[in-house]
């Protein structure tokens, strides 16, 4: 069942404003709407496409583009991408404007400093959640811990940690 272009665009626009915390928070809602309620995708396709979007570099919000492509080809991809990005970007633009207007207010600096725990707490939590999801083989938690230690204590590029992780994954597969 293929939706009309407008329907597709508006659906992803609505998802955009629900995505507080980025795409990982959005995944359950996106599944509910695209698979359960609209029936535009089946369950297996959804989860495989989502994993694919996660494996690629860059923001996981692009899972929306991938879903759009599966639903409606290149046109669907373009509409889904525009829909998922535009409303949130307009909101961020507006908030950045308020920030500038309020720059002189005594409370704006401390209020922004108050958001630091949210940034760090959620960053750490996403590490735990991703680590849990990635713990598919016995070595995985050790790779996660080793990589965390490497990033924290060293100033070398994180790419070394990712490459080492990938090689260890290959090694485990070759042996096992």
């Amino acid at each position, binding site marked *: 069942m293929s939706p009309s272009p407008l329907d597709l665009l508006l659906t992803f626009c609505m998802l955009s404003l629900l995505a507080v915390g980025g795409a990982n928070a959005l995944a359950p809602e996106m599944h509910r709407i695209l698979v359960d309620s609209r029936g535009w995708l089946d369950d297996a396709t959804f989860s495989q496409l989502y994993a694919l979007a996660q494996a690629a570099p860059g923001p996981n919000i692009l899972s929306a583009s991938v879903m759009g492509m599966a639903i409606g080809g290149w046109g669907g991809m373009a509409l889904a991408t525009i829909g998922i990005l535009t409303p949130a970007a307009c909101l961020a633009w507006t908030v950045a404007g308020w920030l500038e207007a309020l720059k002189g207010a005594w409370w704006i600096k401390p209020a922004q400093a*108050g958001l630091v*725990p949210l940034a760090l707490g959620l960053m750490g939590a996403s590490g735990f959640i991703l680590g849990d999801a990635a713990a598919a083989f016995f070595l995985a938690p050790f790779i996660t811990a080793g990589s965390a230690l490497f990033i924290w204590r060293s100033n070398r590029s994180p790419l070394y940690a990712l490459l080492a992780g990938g090689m260890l*994954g290959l090694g485990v597969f070759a042996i096992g």
Partner: protein
Amino acid sequence: MNEQRVPSTGELFLGFLQIGGLAFGGAVAWARQVLVESRGWLTEREYAELLGLAQVLPGPNIGNFAVMYGRRCHGLAGSLAAVGGFFLLPLCIVLALVLVWQEYGQNPWIDAFMKGVAAAAAGMALGAALKSGFKLKPPPEQIVAILVIAALAAWWRVPLGWIILVMGPICVGMALYRARRA
């Protein structure tokens, strides 16, 4: 923006192009690496403050970050350059992957490699949070808040909207109280 250097529009585009192209396993840790460590456009504190705001708003965290930081540097042109740079490479790569996936299905070797990368990428988010936390030296009440927020999100899996609605005002309130007393 204090004494930090303001990048040109072209530099913004290239910087965010680099973040997007490198950002395996989420862009937050990579954005910190590029903006704070390798390019030095933002201090550790400026990065964490703007990121906190970007996370409270709906939409991709670093996407919001790019819009706001771009506007602060060069208005609309800055925002477009940062956002465009950020999404360009990942979009091309992920679409190429979909085409390959539709063609060849799943190769077990690639699958095994990607599982290892995923495990290391998770550690990257943890390591970046630790590194930022130790450099910023937040006051004790903020350290408690960081641990509570991480536990709510990772252990109890509380929906993010609730964490932000409840912990956001508490954290801002504590920071305002501290600023008033100082």
